[in-house]
């Protein structure tokens, strides 16, 4: 009887009027929770204390470089690279997923092999590989292969700039991951939709574009959001080929001033700001795509909203 109202456990002590009786509800004592809270508080206090008192953080330097031109340039490159690799990755992913599901054995094998290779090797290795492509092919030509004439030719070193190497390394890698996300999305669409599409006489690509992909978006969009947040951080790998993105921009500064920690903090704070903004955007987009879906109408706060709500109302987060 005392468990009838789930809210009573979140309010500490509640009084439930039950017909003629009044029953006072006293929640379970949660000793473990109190001990946990104490440990966390002490740890948090220590973190804040040393952040303030340790001079090596050099907060003055952090603020000095936070809006520095070099840093902002790096920030812009990070955003540009994230956006372009995600667009390239998404397009490639759709193509690979459709190839894999096409039922054409050549396409399926080609796609599966691509995904196997680019998911199976680290993005960092691929990036360095592309940057050193000139070792393998000093010249890149357009023409008839196997020794035929070339119509156009260029030096690989001139062609594969750090930016192109980063685009190839991160974009192809992302394409392989996006392929699996898109494939999962397509497979999540009810088989009956495909029957209806075919029975009406729609061509396969018409059915894919108009009926299947729009429904697959419901699961593709949230996963793509996660990928974008991940990619924002992965772009820092491009610092290894001297691409002037956020991490490389602070490195160029601390290589001269030796203020390593303060400048890494500058980069970290920017990464945190960007990932936070993206996370909030993701919540909005997810809400948009789940609008009108069964079960979501009553709670429009989204996952984050529910979590924050659960935390600030001191409710238990167990079922959040």
């Amino acid at each position, binding site marked *: 009887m005392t468990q009838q109202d789930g809210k009573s456990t979140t309010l500490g002590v509640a009084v439930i009027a039950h017909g003629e009786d009044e029953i006072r509800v006293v929640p379970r004592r949660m000793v473990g929770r109190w001990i946990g809270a104490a440990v966390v508080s002490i740890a948090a206090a220590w973190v804040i204390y040393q952040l303030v008192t340790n001079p090596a953080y050099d907060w003055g330097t952090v603020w000095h470089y936070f809006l520095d031109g070099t840093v902002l340039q790096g920030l812009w490159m990070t955003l540009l690279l994230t956006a372009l690799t995600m667009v390239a990755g998404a397009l490639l992913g759709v193509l690979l997923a459709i190839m894999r599901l096409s039922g054409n054995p050549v396409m399926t094998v080609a796609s599966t092999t691509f995904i196997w290779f680019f998911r199976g090797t680290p993005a960092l290795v691929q990036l360095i590989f592309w940057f050193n492509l000139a070792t393998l092919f000093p010249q890149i030509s357009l023409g008839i292969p196997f020794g035929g004439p070339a119509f156009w030719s260029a030096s690989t070193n001139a062609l594969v700039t750090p930016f192109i190497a980063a685009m190839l390394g991160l974009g192809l890698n992302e394409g392989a991951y996006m392929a699996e996300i898109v494939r999962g999305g397509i497979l999540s669409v009810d088989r009956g939709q495909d*029957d209806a599409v075919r029975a009406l006489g729609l061509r396969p690509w018409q059915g894919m574009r108009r009926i299947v992909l729009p429904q697959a978006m419901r699961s593709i969009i949230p996963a793509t959001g996660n990928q974008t947040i991940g990619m924002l951080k992965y772009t820092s790998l491009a610092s290894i080929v001297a691409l002037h993105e956020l991490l490389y921009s602070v490195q160029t500064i601390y290589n001269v001033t030796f203020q390593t920690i303060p400048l890494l903090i500058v980069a970290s704070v920017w990464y945190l700001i960007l990932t936070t903004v993206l996370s909030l955007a993701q919540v909005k987009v997810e809400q948009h795509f789940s609008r009108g879906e069964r079960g979501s109408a009553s709670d429009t706060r989204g996952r984050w909203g529910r979590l924050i709500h659960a935390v600030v109302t001191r409710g238990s987060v167990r079922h959040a």
Partner: protein
Amino acid sequence: MHENSRHASFLEARDLRKSFGSLEVLKGVSLEVARGEVACLLGPSGSGKSTLLRCINHLEVLDSGRITLDSELIGYEKHGEVLREISVRQLCQQRSMIGMVFQNFNLFPHMNVVENIIEAPRLVKGVSRQDSVDRAHELLAMVGLAEKADNYPRQLSGGQQQRVAIARALAMEPKLMLFDEPTSALDPELVGEVLTVMRMLAEQGMTMIVVTHEMAFAREVADTVVFMDDGLVVERGGPDEVLGSPRHERTRSFLARTVRR
């Protein structure tokens, strides 16, 4: 020679065989349906009724046998002695002449009722938006859903969704309509409204093949009742014959079980 031109039926399926892996689902099924005829297909679960319907519009590829609709071979072209698979383009053209209604409606959930109906006429037949929308409203009025044009499928009852699905199929002006247990997923009180629409279609002269467990509908509307079991047509005839005085033991025991339900 012109084997099809003389006594050919409108739909003619001859000696259809289909296996899924090692499971033979159709073991040589033949079926003839005349223009304007309503054939009801009965049989126990797993007897191959859905597979037969899906072979007729080539959703499943046959292992052997042939199907002609209005003297046109479905899915293949005759080149001398061999049958060659037709192009995707031609196949889509053929499928668009055969309407199909599914047990689970299979409406497009991200499109409203009118969009569901005009999608195929626009993409497959190239009908203009205005013409296809006008036609959609006519069809919706016919199935009694004129006021639901702007609703999304999830806002409709099962019976209403199935009537939209029928309107969607009719929008392609099909020569033949296939119904695969159109009322089996419906609450009992919603079955009637769908059967009413189907009865009206039959009266308008639509050629229909209906897989159903609704004996009253079969008795009243069907010209022919076909009883299938274990991948074969066991018995066919008028509804009074097959339902009233079945000749085969298997038909009798199936009917006894069904009526008791």
